[in-house]
């Protein structure tokens, strides 16, 4: 019995000694244990939550997020220092926030070095972390390959009553319409937008994927769809038939290129956790995170050496696009924001959202 007690006591002493002599846990970064607040209009499931978890694992920075969906700029206007970082699915909103003086400079050599200039704000207040093409879907059965190759085609009389889109005042359509105005000039852009409006099969409704559903149901033959939604339809049992009924087209590849939608990252005026917030932004720009964004969202990375998602490569290959990256008609976010009000007013003037008739 005495022997057993001795062994037990020795074991306890040894264990305590181990604990006492063990190295203190290493800090994963200078901001290990710091909590930052992130304001975003992106969804929690999908990319953001796993990204926050990966960030915490690698740097020790904890993220307290709020997922808004609506009213991002209004919230930022009301409480400019509430969050440390802003992430948006529509970078045009970040540009609007910048114009309202709500952002701080990133001041990050790492971001300046890694992110190509066209995806960085010229004043260094935000950067684009990923982008997707705003392309066209056509009916697999009713539209012959090559029949629709450009945005301009959607405005042609032959597609009257055959076009479906979501609301003309939704961010994604405002973004494409103001890019048209900036890139093509007001006259041509307005002709095309009005033409698409005249060709609508029904009053605009639903989100992008619901336009694919409408094509499957025979309501219309062509529609507008962000590139990443197309492969995502094949991941949901109920949506596979929507995807199978349609074909994706990267428009204007023989001319000026496809328009893109961008997501973006910025720092707010809050200064308490500026260092950790900057590290988060830099983490978003890292190759590891960029690859994660590509894998999880099927968007294109802004880093040239991060290849597109295989689904984008395969969609592009059907149109002869070699590396999976379509030709882009690049319009700066400043240029888009300059045209935003005009685009929204024009959409309202032509009663786009009323649909046909």
């Amino acid at each position, binding site marked *: 019995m005495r022997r057993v007690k001795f062994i037990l006591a020795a074991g306890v002493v040894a264990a305590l000694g181990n604990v006492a002599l063990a190295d203190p846990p290493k800090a994963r970064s200078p901001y290990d244990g710091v909590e930052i*607040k992130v304001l975003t209009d992106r*969804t*929690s*499931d*999908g990319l953001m939550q796993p990204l926050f978890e990966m960030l915490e694992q690698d740097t020790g920075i904890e993220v*307290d*997020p*709020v*997922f*808004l*969906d*609506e*009213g991002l*700029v*209004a*919230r930022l*206007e*009301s*409480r*400019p*220092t*509430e*969050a440390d970082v802003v992430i948006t699915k529509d970078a045009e*909103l970040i540009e*609007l926030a910048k114009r309202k003086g709500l952002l701080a400079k990133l001041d990050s050599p790492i971001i300046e070095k890694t992110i190509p200039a066209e995806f960085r704000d010229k004043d260094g207040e935000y950067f684009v972390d990923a982008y997707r093409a705003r392309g066209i879907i056509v009916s697999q059965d009713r539209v012959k390959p090559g029949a629709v190759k450009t945005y301009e085609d959607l405005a042609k009389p032959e597609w009257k009553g055959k076009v479906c889109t979501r*609301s003309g*005042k*939704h*961010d994604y359509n*405002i973004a494409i319409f103001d890019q048209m105005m900036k890139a093509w000039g007001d006259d041509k852009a307005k002709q095309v937008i009005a033409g698409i409006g005249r060709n609508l099969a029904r*009053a605009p*409704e*639903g*989100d992008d*994927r*619901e336009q694919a559903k409408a094509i499957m*149901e025979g309501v219309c033959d062509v529609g507008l769809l962000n590139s990443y939604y197309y492969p*995502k339809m094949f991941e*949901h*049992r*109920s*949506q596979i038939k929507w995807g199978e009924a349609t074909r994706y087209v990267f428009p204007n590849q023989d001319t000026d290129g496809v328009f893109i939608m961008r997501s973006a990252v910025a720092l707010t005026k809050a200064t308490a956790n500026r260092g950790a917030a900057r590290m988060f932004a830099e983490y978003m720009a890292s190759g590891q995170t960029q690859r994660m964004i590509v894998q999880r969202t099927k968007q294109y990375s802004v880093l040239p050496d991060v290849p597109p998602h295989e689904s984008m490569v395969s969609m592009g290959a059907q149109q002869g696009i070699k590396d999976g990256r379509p030709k882009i008609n690049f319009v700066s976010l400043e240029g888009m924001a300059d045209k*935003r*009000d005009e685009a*929204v*007013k024009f*959409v*309202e*003037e032509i*009663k786009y*959202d*009323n649909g046909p008739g």
Partner: protein
Amino acid sequence: MNGPAASIDSRGRRSFLHSLATARYARAKGLLGAWTVTGIALLLAFFPLLYLARYLWSAPPDIVDWIDTWANGTLARQAAETAWVCIVAAVVTIAASVPQAVAVSMYRFRGALLLEGAALAPMLLAPYAAAGAWSELDLGAWSHGPLAMAVQIGFSCAPWAYLALRVAISRLPPMLGEAAAASGMTRVQRIIRVWMPLLAAPLFGAAMFAVARAFGDYGTAARNGAHTFGVSFHDIWNGTQSTHVAAVVALIAAVPAAAVVWFASARATHNVTRRQGGLAGVASWKKVAPPGLMLPAVAGWAIICLALSFAVPEWQYLRWAIDGRWMGWSKAIDVSLDALSTSGAVAVGLAGMGVACALLLRPGARSGLAERSIWLVSINLFIPPMALALAWLAATADGSWLAGALGEARDGTFPLLLAQAIKLAPFAMLPVLDRVARENELLRDALRTAGLPRGAAAAHVLRMTAPAIALGAAMVFMEAVKELEIAITLQPFGYRSPALKIHDLARFHAEYAIAGWLFISQALMLPALLGVVAWLAHLDKSGRLA
């Protein structure tokens, strides 16, 4: 006149003057109490609108241009579609509640509890969730579009109408019917000329709630592709990204809203039974056996309503849940606790407001403009919830006096609680108002005259009104659990709720994942719903009025 006679006369006059002064003092005190509670309620209810109105003064010059563009653009079509949706929603609300309420309140039959449960079950299903299920069923315009939206909104409001009608029918004075029958009126004539006017208040109230919800809703309309005012507000706000434009558009809604609410309040205050508080208290309806084919007809109708409003979408979600992936207990519990604490706090806060109404509003025929004005708290049901959220967001902005007053509470759930409570206030206050209106106006005087201490008299009043306060709190709790649009904008950091999760996942059309969150929200609401059912059953058993 001198001597003892003159002295008696003088004493009598003094006594008369004293009692006159006492009565005037009591009236003034009653008026002050009523206007205090009404004033606070109206101040809170109109605060968001007044705050939005501030933007009219500081509006940039281009705002006229924006409103002009909108007025000459899609407004006309949106107004027409909104009117259509509002009318259909009101009709569905009435149609899906009246037959069931009449049958359960007036007749004794087996299965009444089942019928009651069927009438109240749609409370568990938010209309935006029903919209998700129906749109997947692909029945064309029957499952998607303005008609489908109107029907879904109508069904979601039907349980409110059912509750109001159950209470109203239970207090119908049978002697009026007997007198009308004795005077030779047929059954149909009695229904049209006697009972319908007596039920006008709950019917108008229910229709008003349905119209309000259809008018301001965004989530259900967006999922149905309907172009109603709520969607219009969202789109114009989103397009312009301007608080000024959003404020002006939201204020436009306030004008017809105030008119409709005032009209409904007039109908309620002209209710005949209201002027017969004591009488109605004595006479309660005696349930009889249902006539001929009435029961199968009502049962058939109730089954159709239950199927369309609850069973079919619920079955669809059940199928998705079986196929879907469970999110894990830890996540489910975290989110549930968030929602439970917020919704519970809103319900408790508004129960407090209900207590104030019970104690300070004047009963029966003594009520006046102050009591009628309480109805105006319903105006916020018409305003797009996102506009309300925007108003609170602006009101609690950095540097504002309210943000200063709230201190650190500004960054927690308090603004969300406040905004939700003010929107849902009608659910808590109108049932209490209705109960107080039916109280015999002499009761409180009698309690005082009998020498009951003030506290004991108040406790007696609260015991009488407790069921209405509890009913209001239960309805508020259930509505708060389902509330989505204010939470989207005003949610504090780290906050989650099943409604927000459902909205998030709906952006992916991830119905398999939505189903789990829907059932969690229903599990949170179920005890409150069972409480309402138990309360109704208790009323029937005890023969007491609500």
